[in-house]
């Protein structure tokens, strides 16, 4: 499976049918998730309509954590197996990951104002999520700064692996410390504690975000494959490696 996708041509062929499929799942889930989340699901008995923020806040938060896990996994794959596309996958995931983390912080803050009475507190969950967002920014900066792509890739893999330490801290911060943020009600050992009328739109929106992320990675990696092709073609002829058949032809002519 892993070595199968190390061939860019094979990845391209896979992405050609997987990308439209991801978009189909995305728009299918949104078609039901948006009306359910904004209209058909009930309001909360305590929070009123602000509970509808949950349908964009929670999926963004789950994705912010999952995507960094994906980056760490791809960094490890690039380190251990020297997989040709692993770095490209991790790099393509960073932008969407940063946006998911930013959306988690912003929507959480806007939700916090009417429910907690404050935009921000330095509690463990909020602070660790802010650190995760800054790690994404740092990871993107590593790729953007260097002129030598191999050096940037090595440093990015280290940031991807070390930065992952924060992900379980984000997840379990609500259990380990006394936080203003509520404990987990979805991904917990004894199952979700949310009523199905709210669980359905939440699940659909989460699935939509996963499909969107898959599409982001597929299109990002395809773009990087094309960019590499262009860079190779743009090399001056003298610096290109000579093919054996060209050498043979040269011998005959000379």
């Amino acid at each position, binding site marked *: 499976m892993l070595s199968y996708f190390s061939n860019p041509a094979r990845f391209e062929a896979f992405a050609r049918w997987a990308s439209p499929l991801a978009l189909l799942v995305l728009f299918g889930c949104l078609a039901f998730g948006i009306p359910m989340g904004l209209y058909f699901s009930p309001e909360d008995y305590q929070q009123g*309509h*602000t509970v509808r923020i949950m349908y964009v806040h929670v999926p963004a938060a789950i994705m912010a954590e999952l995507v960094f896990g994906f980056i760490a996994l791809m960094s490890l794959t690039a380190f251990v197996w020297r997989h040709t596309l692993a770095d490209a996958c991790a790099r393509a995931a960073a932008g969407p990951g940063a946006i998911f983390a930013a*959306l988690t912080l912003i*929507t959480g803050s806007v939700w916090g104002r009417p429910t907690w009475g404050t935009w921000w507190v330095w509690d463990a969950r909020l602070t660790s999520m802010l650190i995760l967002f800054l790690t994404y920014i740092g990871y993107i900066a590593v790729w953007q700064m260097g002129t030598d792509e191999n050096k940037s890739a090595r440093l990015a893999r280290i940031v991807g692996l070390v930065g992952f330490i924060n992900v379980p801290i984000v997840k379990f911060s609500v259990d380990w410390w006394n936080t203003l943020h509520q404990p987990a009600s979805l991904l917990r050992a004894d199952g979700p504690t949310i009523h199905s009328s709210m669980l359905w739109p939440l699940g659909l929106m989460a699935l939509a975000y996963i499909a969107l992320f898959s599409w982001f990675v597929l299109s990002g990696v395809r773009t990087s494959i*094309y960019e590499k092709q*262009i860079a190779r073609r743009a090399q001056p002829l003298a610096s290109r490696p000579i093919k054996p058949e060209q050498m043979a032809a040269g011998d005959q002519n000379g």
Partner: protein
Amino acid sequence: MAEFFAMGGYGFHVWTCWGLSGILLGGLGIARERRLRRTAKLAKQHDERAKREEPNP
């Protein structure tokens, strides 16, 4: 209809969150799609030019 947009007095909070999510994720989606199309077109052009320039065997 007005009642739906008012969201029980929390219209600003709910619509800000949903709106920002749509704008940021949709914006990144459009930017990525445009970049993919641009690079795919450029790669094809480079490919065709290289084929023209390479000597025939």
